[in-house]
């Protein structure tokens, strides 16, 4: 079934650059599966563009990448995109996945109380390890992929028509699989040190529904 997906992808520092590139993989898959993708990259990841597109296309789900805190998800250059000060009228009945720090703590519950169908996010900082020598080619960074592949799975599962709860579970299964692989096989020092942070992201990923 064809769905409409809206994605924000700011790109202005190391963390957002990694999320910018890794979320491209999801966009490509969504398009390949026949979904309509509305992409707000870099400077287009601003509040005016976000609200304008929401009104126009009424997406089924929204994939937010970037920085965040308990109350806010940010776009390009730390412009607030969604906060607990918003009415959330534009987001009613939508599914939001916020790949940003801590927004699952207060913004998530607030959104769901205001009519968002589901909010998947993190109640603590989303941490990942990367190799700075690959900073200009983030998709070649396998260590970062240990974190960003499982988190991408939230969206790829939703695209396939599964529920937010199922998307959250499959993503956590992928995190766990990476952790177990690193603990039980010969692995590089770089990757072995990722285990504690993979566990952290998995543990603090939440799926909030009505």
């Amino acid at each position, binding site marked *: 079934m064809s769905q409409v997906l809206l994605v924000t992808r700011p790109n202005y*520092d190391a963390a957002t650059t990694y999320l910018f590139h890794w979320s491209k993989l999801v966009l490509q898959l969504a398009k390949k599966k026949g979904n309509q993708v509305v992409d707000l990259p870099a400077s287009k990841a601003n509040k005016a563009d976000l609200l304008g597109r929401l009104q126009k296309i009424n997406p089924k789900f929204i994939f937010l990448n970037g920085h965040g805190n308990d109350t806010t998800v940010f776009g390009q250059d730390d412009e607030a995109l969604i906060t607990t000060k918003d009415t959330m009228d534009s987001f009613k009945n939508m599914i939001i996945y916020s790949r940003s720090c801590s927004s699952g703590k207060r913004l998530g519950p607030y959104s769901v109380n205001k009519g968002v169908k589901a909010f998947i996010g993190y109640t603590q900082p989303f*941490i990942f390890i990367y*190799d700075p020598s690959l900073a200009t080619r983030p998709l070649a960074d396998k260590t970062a992929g240990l974190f960003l592949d499982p988190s991408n799975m939230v969206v790829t599962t939703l695209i396939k028509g599964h529920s937010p709860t199922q998307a959250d579970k499959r993503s956590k299964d992928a995190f*766990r699989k990476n952790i177990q692989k690193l603990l039980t096989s010969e692995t590089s020092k770089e990757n072995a040190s990722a285990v*504690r942070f993979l566990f952290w992201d998995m543990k603090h990923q939440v799926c909030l529904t009505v």
Partner: protein
Amino acid sequence: MDGRKKITSEEIKRLVVERLKTMPSGMRISIGGQGSFSKDELLAKVEEGDSIGQEIIQVELEYLRALKKGEIFNEPGAFSNTA
């Protein structure tokens, strides 16, 4: 009294520092909007005890507790924080 010695916060800090030292030096750790840090920068933050240092201590302790409880090898989906 169960006879077990309580671990002090200083001992916890030493434990985390020693574990962090085993991390490779060439990688960076992105902690969202707080920035990206090298191993040495994180070590300094744990030693200083600032907010990022405290967060790293929390990461390590949660992981070690989970290892002790066997949570790491639980069936997939054990952490379905669905509300």
